[in-house]
Protein backbone atom coordinates (compact mmCIF):
# COMPACT_ATOMS: atom_id res chain seq x y z
CA UNK A 1 0.00 0.00 0.00
CA UNK A 2 1.35 3.39 -0.99
CA UNK A 3 0.32 5.11 2.24
CA UNK A 4 3.10 3.44 4.24
CA UNK A 5 5.68 4.98 1.92
CA UNK A 6 7.67 7.76 3.61
CA UNK A 7 7.53 10.11 0.66
CA UNK A 8 3.80 10.40 0.10
CA UNK A 9 2.70 14.00 -0.05
CA UNK A 10 0.00 15.36 2.22
CA UNK A 11 -2.19 16.10 -0.77
CA UNK A 12 -1.97 12.50 -1.78
CA UNK A 13 -2.87 11.35 1.72
CA UNK A 14 -6.04 13.38 1.49
CA UNK A 15 -7.11 12.50 -2.06
CA UNK A 16 -6.34 8.90 -1.28
CA UNK A 17 -9.11 8.82 1.29
CA UNK A 18 -11.41 10.80 -0.95
CA UNK A 19 -11.18 8.66 -4.09
CA UNK A 20 -8.87 5.71 -4.25
CA UNK A 21 -9.58 4.34 -0.80
CA UNK A 22 -12.91 5.97 -0.10
CA UNK A 23 -14.10 4.03 2.94
CA UNK A 24 -17.70 3.70 1.78
CA UNK A 25 -17.72 3.58 -2.00
CA UNK A 26 -14.46 1.73 -2.57
CA UNK A 27 -13.69 -0.28 0.56
CA UNK A 28 -17.31 -0.80 1.64
CA UNK A 29 -16.45 -0.28 5.29
CA UNK A 30 -18.55 1.45 7.95
CA UNK A 31 -21.70 1.09 5.96
CA UNK A 32 -24.22 1.17 8.78
CA UNK A 33 -24.42 4.94 9.30
CA UNK A 34 -24.10 5.52 5.56
CA UNK A 35 -27.64 4.25 5.29
CA UNK A 36 -29.10 4.81 8.71
CA UNK A 37 -28.54 8.54 9.12
CA UNK A 38 -28.55 9.78 5.55
CA UNK A 39 -32.24 10.47 4.98
CA UNK A 40 -31.53 14.17 5.22
CA UNK A 41 -28.49 16.31 4.60
CA UNK A 42 -28.25 17.78 8.09
CA UNK A 43 -27.90 14.40 9.80
CA UNK A 44 -25.39 13.31 7.18
CA UNK A 45 -23.23 16.38 7.71
CA UNK A 46 -23.15 16.08 11.51
CA UNK A 47 -22.49 12.35 11.41
CA UNK A 48 -19.67 12.96 8.92
CA UNK A 49 -18.17 15.65 11.13
CA UNK A 50 -18.26 13.37 14.16
CA UNK A 51 -16.37 10.71 12.24
CA UNK A 52 -13.75 13.19 10.99
CA UNK A 53 -13.09 14.39 14.52
CA UNK A 54 -12.85 10.88 15.97
CA UNK A 55 -10.60 9.66 13.16
CA UNK A 56 -8.18 12.56 13.41
CA UNK A 57 -7.99 12.50 17.21
CA UNK A 58 -7.53 8.74 17.31
CA UNK A 59 -4.78 8.90 14.69
CA UNK A 60 -3.05 11.70 16.62
CA UNK A 61 -3.26 9.93 19.96
CA UNK A 62 -2.09 6.58 18.70
CA UNK A 63 0.68 8.05 16.61
CA UNK A 64 1.94 10.04 19.59
CA UNK A 65 1.89 6.96 21.82
CA UNK A 66 3.19 4.52 19.22
CA UNK A 67 6.56 3.88 20.86
CA UNK A 68 4.97 3.04 24.23
CA UNK A 69 2.39 0.57 22.97
CA UNK A 70 3.52 -3.03 23.14
CA UNK A 71 2.55 -4.74 19.88
CA UNK A 72 1.01 -7.70 21.73
CA UNK A 73 -1.68 -5.69 23.45
CA UNK A 74 -2.09 -3.04 20.79
CA UNK A 75 -5.66 -3.88 19.79
CA UNK A 76 -7.23 -3.44 23.24
CA UNK A 77 -5.33 -0.16 23.59
CA UNK A 78 -6.56 1.06 20.21
CA UNK A 79 -10.12 0.18 21.18
CA UNK A 80 -9.70 2.04 24.45
CA UNK A 81 -8.42 5.17 22.69
CA UNK A 82 -11.23 5.00 20.11
CA UNK A 83 -13.99 4.51 22.66
CA UNK A 84 -12.58 7.33 24.76
CA UNK A 85 -12.78 9.78 21.87
CA UNK A 86 -16.19 8.50 20.83
CA UNK A 87 -17.47 9.13 24.34
CA UNK A 88 -16.16 12.70 24.12
CA UNK A 89 -17.82 13.35 20.74
CA UNK A 90 -21.00 11.67 21.92
CA UNK A 91 -21.33 13.91 24.98
CA UNK A 92 -20.45 17.05 23.00
CA UNK A 93 -23.04 16.33 20.30
CA UNK A 94 -25.70 15.57 22.90
CA UNK A 95 -25.11 18.98 24.44
CA UNK A 96 -24.52 21.04 21.28
CA UNK A 97 -27.03 19.75 18.72
CA UNK A 98 -29.76 17.89 20.65
CA UNK A 99 -32.22 17.75 17.73
CA UNK A 100 -29.72 16.00 15.46
CA UNK A 101 -28.49 13.84 18.32
CA UNK A 102 -31.99 12.45 18.77
CA UNK A 103 -31.74 10.85 15.31
CA UNK A 104 -28.10 9.90 15.12
CA UNK A 105 -27.20 9.29 18.78
CA UNK A 106 -27.06 5.50 18.62
CA UNK A 107 -24.93 5.62 15.49
CA UNK A 108 -22.52 8.10 17.05
CA UNK A 109 -21.97 5.67 19.90
CA UNK A 110 -21.40 2.90 17.41
CA UNK A 111 -18.51 4.76 15.76
CA UNK A 112 -16.52 2.66 18.24
CA UNK A 113 -17.10 -0.37 16.08
CA UNK A 114 -16.05 1.28 12.82
CA UNK A 115 -13.68 -1.02 11.04
CA UNK A 116 -12.19 1.89 9.09
CA UNK A 117 -11.06 3.80 12.18
CA UNK A 118 -9.39 0.78 13.71
CA UNK A 119 -7.87 -0.09 10.34
CA UNK A 120 -6.26 3.35 9.92
CA UNK A 121 -4.94 3.25 13.48
CA UNK A 122 -3.41 -0.14 12.83
CA UNK A 123 -2.15 0.38 9.28
CA UNK A 124 -1.03 3.99 9.41
CA UNK A 125 -0.97 5.81 12.74
CA UNK A 126 0.87 3.09 14.64
CA UNK A 127 3.74 3.22 12.15
CA UNK A 128 4.00 6.89 11.18
CA UNK A 129 4.86 10.21 12.86
CA UNK A 130 2.21 12.53 14.22
CA UNK A 131 1.78 15.01 11.35
CA UNK A 132 1.29 12.54 8.48
CA UNK A 133 -1.06 10.55 10.73
CA UNK A 134 -3.17 13.64 11.28
CA UNK A 135 -3.36 14.21 7.53
CA UNK A 136 -4.21 10.58 6.93
CA UNK A 137 -6.98 10.94 9.50
CA UNK A 138 -8.27 14.06 7.75
CA UNK A 139 -8.17 12.33 4.37
CA UNK A 140 -10.00 9.23 5.57
CA UNK A 141 -12.46 11.30 7.57
CA UNK A 142 -13.15 13.58 4.61
CA UNK A 143 -13.64 10.58 2.35
CA UNK A 144 -16.31 9.37 4.73
CA UNK A 145 -17.77 12.85 5.15
CA UNK A 146 -17.91 13.31 1.38
CA UNK A 147 -19.66 9.98 0.89
CA UNK A 148 -22.21 10.75 3.60
CA UNK A 149 -22.92 14.19 2.17
CA UNK A 150 -23.38 12.83 -1.36
CA UNK A 151 -25.69 10.06 -0.20
CA UNK A 152 -27.77 12.25 2.08
CA UNK A 153 -28.05 15.08 -0.44
CA UNK A 154 -29.12 12.60 -3.13
CA UNK A 155 -31.72 11.07 -0.84
CA UNK A 156 -33.08 14.35 0.46
CA UNK A 157 -33.32 16.05 -2.94
CA UNK A 158 -34.95 13.13 -4.71
CA UNK A 159 -36.89 11.70 -1.81
CA UNK A 160 -38.22 14.85 -0.19
CA UNK A 161 -37.62 17.49 -2.85
CA UNK A 162 -35.81 19.68 -0.35
CA UNK A 163 -32.27 20.46 0.73
CA UNK A 164 -31.25 21.19 4.34
CA UNK A 165 -34.95 21.32 5.13
CA UNK A 166 -35.76 23.92 2.44
CA UNK A 167 -38.18 23.03 -0.31
CA UNK A 168 -36.82 23.28 -3.81
CA UNK A 169 -39.28 21.37 -5.95
CA UNK A 170 -42.47 21.89 -3.96
CA UNK A 171 -43.21 18.20 -4.52
CA UNK A 172 -41.83 14.86 -3.40
CA UNK A 173 -40.48 13.17 -6.54
CA UNK A 174 -39.61 9.70 -5.21
CA UNK A 175 -40.69 9.24 -1.63
CA UNK A 176 -39.17 5.78 -1.41
CA UNK A 177 -35.64 7.14 -1.21
CA UNK A 178 -36.11 8.55 2.28
CA UNK A 179 -37.66 5.31 3.52
CA UNK A 180 -35.26 2.80 5.06
CA UNK A 181 -35.33 0.54 2.00
CA UNK A 182 -34.51 3.49 -0.25
CA UNK A 183 -31.21 3.94 1.56
CA UNK A 184 -29.99 0.65 0.17
CA UNK A 185 -31.10 1.58 -3.35
CA UNK A 186 -29.41 4.96 -3.08
CA UNK A 187 -26.11 3.50 -1.89
CA UNK A 188 -26.22 0.78 -4.54
CA UNK A 189 -26.82 3.27 -7.33
CA UNK A 190 -24.23 5.75 -6.08
CA UNK A 191 -21.69 2.99 -5.64
CA UNK A 192 -22.16 1.90 -9.24
CA UNK A 193 -21.87 5.55 -10.34
CA UNK A 194 -18.68 5.88 -8.31
CA UNK A 195 -17.24 2.75 -9.94
CA UNK A 196 -17.99 4.21 -13.34
CA UNK A 197 -16.53 7.60 -12.41
CA UNK A 198 -13.42 6.02 -10.93
CA UNK A 199 -12.77 3.90 -13.97
CA UNK A 200 -13.17 6.92 -16.28
CA UNK A 201 -11.28 9.56 -14.33
CA UNK A 202 -9.46 7.63 -11.60
CA UNK A 203 -6.16 7.46 -13.47
CA UNK A 204 -6.06 11.24 -13.86
CA UNK A 205 -6.71 12.16 -10.23
CA UNK A 206 -4.16 9.62 -9.07
CA UNK A 207 -1.37 11.51 -10.90
CA UNK A 208 -0.92 14.21 -8.23
Amino acid sequence: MSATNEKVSYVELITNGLLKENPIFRLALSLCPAIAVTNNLKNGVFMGLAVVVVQVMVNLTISAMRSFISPRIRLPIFMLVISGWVTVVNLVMDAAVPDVYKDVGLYIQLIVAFASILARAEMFASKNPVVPSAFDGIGQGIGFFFALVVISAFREVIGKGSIWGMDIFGTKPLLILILPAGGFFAVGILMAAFNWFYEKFGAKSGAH
Partner: protein
Amino acid sequence: MDFGKLFELVVSASLVNNYVFTMFLGLCIFFGVSKKMETAMGMSVTFTAVMMISAALSWMVFKFIMVPLNIEFLMIIVFIGIVAGLVQGSDTIMRKVSPDLYYKLGIYLALISTNCIILAVPLSNVGNKYGFVESIAYALGSGIGFSLALIIMASIREKLELANVPRYFRGLPMAFVVTGLIALAFTGFSGLITL
Protein backbone atom coordinates in the same frame (compact mmCIF):
# COMPACT_ATOMS: atom_id res chain seq x y z
CA MET B 1 -42.66 -12.09 33.98
CA ASP B 2 -45.34 -12.38 31.37
CA PHE B 3 -44.44 -14.98 28.77
CA GLY B 4 -46.56 -13.40 26.04
CA LYS B 5 -44.76 -10.12 26.47
CA LEU B 6 -41.40 -11.84 26.02
CA PHE B 7 -42.62 -13.56 22.88
CA GLU B 8 -43.74 -10.21 21.52
CA LEU B 9 -40.33 -8.80 22.30
CA VAL B 10 -38.58 -11.59 20.40
CA VAL B 11 -40.85 -11.21 17.36
CA SER B 12 -40.54 -7.46 17.37
CA ALA B 13 -36.74 -7.57 17.61
CA SER B 14 -36.41 -10.16 14.88
CA LEU B 15 -39.01 -9.05 12.33
CA VAL B 16 -40.44 -5.59 12.97
CA ASN B 17 -37.20 -3.96 14.08
CA ASN B 18 -34.86 -6.23 12.19
CA TYR B 19 -31.35 -4.99 12.80
CA VAL B 20 -30.22 -5.28 9.21
CA PHE B 21 -33.28 -4.18 7.29
CA THR B 22 -34.81 -1.48 9.44
CA MET B 23 -31.96 -0.33 11.67
CA PHE B 24 -29.03 -0.82 9.29
CA LEU B 25 -26.60 -2.28 11.73
CA GLY B 26 -24.01 -4.97 11.14
CA LEU B 27 -23.92 -4.21 7.44
CA CYS B 28 -20.20 -4.80 7.02
CA ILE B 29 -20.51 -8.35 8.26
CA PHE B 30 -23.82 -8.76 6.49
CA PHE B 31 -22.31 -7.97 3.11
CA GLY B 32 -19.04 -9.67 3.96
CA VAL B 33 -20.22 -13.14 4.89
CA SER B 34 -23.42 -13.48 2.89
CA LYS B 35 -21.73 -14.79 -0.24
CA LYS B 36 -22.04 -18.44 0.69
CA MET B 37 -24.75 -20.32 2.54
CA GLU B 38 -22.30 -22.31 4.65
CA THR B 39 -20.47 -19.30 6.08
CA ALA B 40 -23.78 -17.53 6.62
CA MET B 41 -25.02 -20.42 8.77
CA GLY B 42 -21.81 -20.55 10.82
CA MET B 43 -21.93 -16.82 11.39
CA SER B 44 -25.59 -16.89 12.44
CA VAL B 45 -25.03 -19.50 15.15
CA THR B 46 -21.92 -17.84 16.56
CA PHE B 47 -23.52 -14.45 16.43
CA THR B 48 -26.70 -15.33 18.28
CA ALA B 49 -24.78 -17.10 21.02
CA VAL B 50 -22.30 -14.28 21.59
CA MET B 51 -25.08 -11.71 21.51
CA MET B 52 -27.12 -13.44 24.24
CA ILE B 53 -24.15 -14.01 26.52
CA SER B 54 -22.86 -10.47 26.12
CA ALA B 55 -26.34 -9.03 26.75
CA ALA B 56 -26.58 -10.99 29.99
CA LEU B 57 -23.08 -10.05 31.12
CA SER B 58 -23.39 -6.38 30.30
CA TRP B 59 -26.78 -6.17 32.02
CA MET B 60 -25.23 -7.51 35.21
CA VAL B 61 -22.21 -5.24 34.98
CA PHE B 62 -24.39 -2.21 34.30
CA LYS B 63 -26.85 -2.95 37.10
CA PHE B 64 -24.49 -4.10 39.84
CA ILE B 65 -21.29 -2.21 39.12
CA MET B 66 -21.91 0.85 36.97
CA VAL B 67 -25.15 2.17 38.45
CA PRO B 68 -23.96 2.00 42.09
CA LEU B 69 -20.71 3.73 41.12
CA ASN B 70 -22.49 6.37 39.00
CA ILE B 71 -20.34 5.71 35.93
CA GLU B 72 -23.12 5.12 33.39
CA PHE B 73 -21.48 7.56 30.97
CA LEU B 74 -18.61 5.09 30.53
CA MET B 75 -20.93 2.45 29.11
CA ILE B 76 -19.46 2.49 25.60
CA ILE B 77 -15.97 1.73 26.89
CA VAL B 78 -17.18 -0.87 29.37
CA PHE B 79 -19.45 -2.67 26.92
CA ILE B 80 -16.85 -2.88 24.19
CA GLY B 81 -14.46 -4.24 26.81
CA ILE B 82 -16.99 -6.89 27.79
CA VAL B 83 -17.54 -7.93 24.18
CA ALA B 84 -13.82 -8.04 23.40
CA GLY B 85 -13.10 -9.99 26.57
CA LEU B 86 -15.93 -12.42 25.91
CA VAL B 87 -14.81 -13.03 22.35
CA GLN B 88 -11.20 -13.52 23.38
CA GLY B 89 -12.27 -15.82 26.20
CA SER B 90 -14.56 -18.02 24.16
CA ASP B 91 -11.89 -18.16 21.47
CA THR B 92 -9.41 -19.62 23.95
CA ILE B 93 -11.91 -21.97 25.59
CA MET B 94 -13.21 -23.26 22.28
CA ARG B 95 -9.69 -23.92 21.00
CA LYS B 96 -8.96 -26.09 24.05
CA VAL B 97 -12.31 -27.80 24.53
CA SER B 98 -13.45 -28.44 21.00
CA PRO B 99 -10.86 -27.81 18.29
CA ASP B 100 -13.32 -29.12 15.75
CA LEU B 101 -15.88 -26.41 16.45
CA TYR B 102 -13.08 -23.87 16.69
CA TYR B 103 -11.89 -24.80 13.24
CA LYS B 104 -15.40 -24.20 11.91
CA LEU B 105 -16.45 -21.08 13.79
CA GLY B 106 -13.21 -19.51 15.06
CA ILE B 107 -12.87 -17.11 12.17
CA TYR B 108 -16.33 -15.65 12.79
CA LEU B 109 -15.54 -15.12 16.44
CA ALA B 110 -12.59 -12.92 15.55
CA LEU B 111 -14.77 -10.85 13.23
CA ILE B 112 -17.45 -10.34 15.85
CA SER B 113 -15.47 -8.15 18.21
CA THR B 114 -15.64 -5.20 15.84
CA ASN B 115 -19.29 -5.59 15.03
CA CYS B 116 -21.80 -2.92 15.73
CA ILE B 117 -24.81 -5.16 16.41
CA ILE B 118 -23.12 -6.88 19.30
CA LEU B 119 -22.51 -3.48 20.84
CA ALA B 120 -25.92 -2.11 19.89
CA VAL B 121 -27.79 -4.79 21.83
CA PRO B 122 -26.48 -3.86 25.29
CA LEU B 123 -26.75 -0.16 24.44
CA SER B 124 -30.41 -0.50 23.46
CA ASN B 125 -31.07 -2.69 26.48
CA VAL B 126 -29.91 0.16 28.65
CA GLY B 127 -31.76 2.72 26.53
CA ASN B 128 -35.05 0.80 26.78
CA LYS B 129 -34.52 -0.03 30.48
CA TYR B 130 -35.07 -3.76 29.94
CA GLY B 131 -34.84 -6.19 32.85
CA PHE B 132 -32.58 -9.23 32.87
CA VAL B 133 -34.91 -11.70 31.13
CA GLU B 134 -36.13 -9.04 28.72
CA SER B 135 -32.55 -8.19 27.79
CA ILE B 136 -31.84 -11.80 26.91
CA ALA B 137 -35.10 -12.09 24.98
CA TYR B 138 -34.21 -8.95 23.04
CA ALA B 139 -30.76 -10.34 22.27
CA LEU B 140 -32.30 -13.64 21.12
CA GLY B 141 -34.75 -11.81 18.87
CA SER B 142 -32.00 -9.67 17.38
CA GLY B 143 -29.90 -12.76 16.79
CA ILE B 144 -32.75 -14.54 15.03
CA GLY B 145 -33.40 -11.46 12.93
CA PHE B 146 -29.77 -11.19 11.89
CA SER B 147 -29.57 -14.90 11.09
CA LEU B 148 -32.72 -14.64 9.00
CA ALA B 149 -31.27 -11.70 7.06
CA LEU B 150 -27.98 -13.50 6.45
CA ILE B 151 -29.63 -16.69 5.27
CA ILE B 152 -32.08 -14.93 2.93
CA MET B 153 -29.27 -12.84 1.48
CA ALA B 154 -26.88 -15.78 1.08
CA SER B 155 -29.41 -17.83 -0.83
CA ILE B 156 -30.16 -14.91 -3.15
CA ARG B 157 -26.51 -14.12 -3.74
CA GLU B 158 -25.73 -17.71 -4.63
CA LYS B 159 -28.31 -17.44 -7.42
CA LEU B 160 -27.06 -13.99 -8.38
CA GLU B 161 -23.68 -15.46 -9.29
CA LEU B 162 -25.26 -16.88 -12.41
CA ALA B 163 -27.21 -13.78 -13.39
CA ASN B 164 -26.08 -11.28 -15.97
CA VAL B 165 -25.66 -8.05 -13.99
CA PRO B 166 -24.74 -4.72 -15.66
CA ARG B 167 -20.98 -4.14 -15.48
CA TYR B 168 -20.74 -1.34 -12.93
CA PHE B 169 -23.34 -2.94 -10.70
CA ARG B 170 -21.41 -6.16 -10.30
CA GLY B 171 -20.62 -7.20 -6.74
CA LEU B 172 -21.56 -4.85 -3.94
CA PRO B 173 -23.80 -2.32 -5.71
CA MET B 174 -26.07 -5.15 -6.83
CA ALA B 175 -26.05 -6.61 -3.32
CA PHE B 176 -27.24 -3.25 -2.04
CA VAL B 177 -30.11 -3.08 -4.48
CA VAL B 178 -31.18 -6.61 -3.56
CA THR B 179 -31.02 -5.72 0.13
CA GLY B 180 -33.19 -2.70 -0.63
CA LEU B 181 -35.82 -4.97 -2.14
CA ILE B 182 -35.78 -7.29 0.88
CA ALA B 183 -35.95 -4.28 3.20
CA LEU B 184 -38.98 -3.09 1.28
CA ALA B 185 -40.63 -6.44 1.95
CA PHE B 186 -39.72 -6.16 5.63
CA THR B 187 -41.47 -2.81 5.94
CA GLY B 188 -44.60 -4.94 5.62
CA PHE B 189 -43.98 -6.17 9.17
CA SER B 190 -44.12 -2.68 10.65
CA GLY B 191 -47.17 -2.24 12.83
CA LEU B 192 -47.42 -6.00 13.38
CA ILE B 193 -46.59 -5.51 17.04
CA THR B 194 -46.62 -2.28 18.96
CA LEU B 195 -44.86 -2.56 22.28
